[in-house]
């Protein structure tokens, strides 16, 4: 597992904090790409690039909120795949 010692404060503080996990982030970006019919290879490449950019952003901080991670990830993902970025950002507000 690819871990940085950064505390992630979960949404609304309802769930306990987690340690930042690059692999978990990469999996969720990959899922967003696949859900908008991106080919598997492309989804893999984009998720690696975006996760790396977000990790670089996180490295300078001791704690981040899950909303921060979502916002920065969407911003980065927007550069490579706007539709995947839309789903990544909005999948919690579909219902």
């Amino acid at each position, binding site marked *: 597992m690819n871990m940085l010692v950064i505390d992630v404060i979960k949404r609304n503080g309802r769930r306990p904090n987690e340690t930042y996990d690059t692999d978990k982030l990469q999996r969720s970006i990959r899922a967003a790409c*696949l859900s*908008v019919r991106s080919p598997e290879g492309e989804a893999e490449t984009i998720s690696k690039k975006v996760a790396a950019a977000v990790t670089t952003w996180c490295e300078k901080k001791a704690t981040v909120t899950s909303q921060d991670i979502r916002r920065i990830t969407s911003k980065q993902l927007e550069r490579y795949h706007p*539709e995947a970025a*839309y*789903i990544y950002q*909005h999948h919690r*507000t*579909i*219902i």
Partner: protein
Amino acid sequence: MGNFDIISSLAIIVLAGLIHASFQTSASVLTLLSGHALSSKTAHLRLLRLTGSFIIGTITFSILLLSSLAFLLTNLFPTSTPLIIWAISSGAVAGVGLSVWLFYYRRQQGTVLWLPRSFATYLRSRAKSTKQPAEAFTLGMTSTMSELLFLLAPLVITALVLIRLEPTLQLLGVALYAIIASLPLAIIYILIGGGHTIARIQRWRENNKRFLQFAAGSGLIILGLFVYIERVITYSVRSGGFGA
């Protein structure tokens, strides 16, 4: 029953079906289900089977609800439906219409519905874990059930209309209602089957959510007024006034 009565009865059923169709819980769950299925690399045919089963689940539950209500109302009012029942039902339908205008969507981004959050979380997690067509079928039934608070109004009006029709027309009425009510889901199914992305579908739904809310609310108010005029006032006048 005259031709005019049959036409007006079918018109009420069509309008009620359209109102049912404008409610969004099942469309939201179907969008989520498709998204999760695609993200877990589900084969296209399997994706169509899952979404198809979901839609069959919603149709089955709508038909079961409508038939049960019709059965209950037939036993309660075997010969004729009292005017007070028509009056109460039309008032309730108009009231639900106002509630749709006021509360149907929450004031936040996306298409977040009025549903209690625990319900929404449950539907979201079930959509994510659904892998088999049988699970998708029950998810379709559950998503229809979770919208019952709003669906009950058009369903009761349709059931009240159905019980006064000939048996063959009753079957036609149930089929008509079920087909119209499931049209948006069928459109989403066709779009997904045709290769459209859920991002485009969801973006359209988000951009048009206020229109859909207005249409559903207005439809209910119009249905309430139509039923009140057609079933309460007209019958009262025909039978010699309200006092008769």
